[in-house]
């Protein structure tokens, strides 16, 4: 008889549990299928020099960080100071992917706020972005010596994410011989 009254309560608790977990999940955080997969191939010109092309192969053999940004992207402004600070540490090359932008707008943005990138790739039509599964600029990737994507951050990087995730990961990837 007791069970009869406790059962709805138990069901209610289970339901609340599910809802509580659901509240904490962020639907924007789509797990990327690209983690652990080779970075897509690309051959893009530099933002500052339309005559110079950078390919995926040029960056093999070193760990590097790819940051997708655009002059029209408001959140890129928020993460910009943190990228500037990270670039100063000179841990690994920081490559920008200037996504769906124009050369003058992108270059003006860098002049105005400062350029944390060792180089920016110019992806005017966003095709390389699609290959990287980009959908919410800014996004940040860590790519290892073999050209495999090891980490992806959707949305602006924060000092916390840099310190707790990116810097230690890059360090361990740099130290490994493989």
């Amino acid at each position: 008889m007791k069970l009869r009254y406790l059962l709805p309560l138990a069901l209610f608790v289970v339901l609340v549990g599910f809802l509580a977990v659901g509240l904490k999940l962020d639907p924007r955080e789509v797990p990327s299928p690209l983690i652990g997969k080779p970075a897509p191939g690309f051959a893009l010109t530099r933002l500052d020099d339309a005559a110079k092309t950078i390919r995926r192969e040029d960056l093999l053999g070193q760990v590097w960080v790819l940051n997708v940004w655009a002059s029209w992207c408001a959140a890129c402004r928020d993460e910009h100071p943190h990228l500037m600070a990270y670039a100063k540490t000179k841990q690994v090359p920081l490559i920008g992917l200037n996504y769906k932008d124009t050369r003058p707008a992108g270059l003006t943005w860098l002049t105005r706020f400062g350029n944390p990138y060792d180089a920016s790739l110019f992806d005017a039509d966003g095709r390389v972005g699609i290959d990287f599964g980009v959908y919410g600029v800014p996004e940040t990737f860590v790519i290892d010596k073999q050209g495999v994507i090891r980490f992806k951050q959707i949305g602006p990087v924060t000092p916390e994410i840099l310190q707790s995730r990116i810097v230690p990961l890059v360090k361990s990837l740099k130290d490994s011989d493989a």
Partner: protein
Amino acid sequence: MPEDLRIPFWPSLSKPRATLFTGMLLLLIALFLATAQAKAQAQAQAKEAAPAAADPVLEARVQRVAAELRCLVCQNQTIADSTSDLATDLRREVREQLKRGVSDEQVVQYMTDRYGDFVRYRPPFKASTALLWLGPAALLALSLGVLVTVLRRRAKLGPEAFEPDEDDVLDAAAVPTERSR
């Protein structure tokens, strides 16, 4: 409304209230129909406005494939519905791939490789999505089972297990001689 005209679960209402109730019900139905009509019209217009109508067969395929893919910027829309930049780019990608002779399935696979299963409006059936696909059916079966069990158990009970009907009690009070005998 006569007093004894009562349907179980249906609120017994006075006449003005019943009129209001019926009125609101009709209004709701009218609104629903109007929305459906507007939606159908919008869809028809959207199709008319589709770009590159040079090849209607290709365009129909693009629409069909795009309707299978979720726009990741506005997650409750397909890339066929969405006007976001990303959806426009992905539609272009779908169109170009189909033009190159890639099959519908391969295009969906191409998107899945980049954006994950989440990009598919109809997620594939596998271990991690079994609950998603089977959950509603399981829940329905479970509740039907509970309902049948409860009803069967009740059918076996004698009349003394239930509270007497209100009407019977009233009748008994009104005409004590008939009942008490």
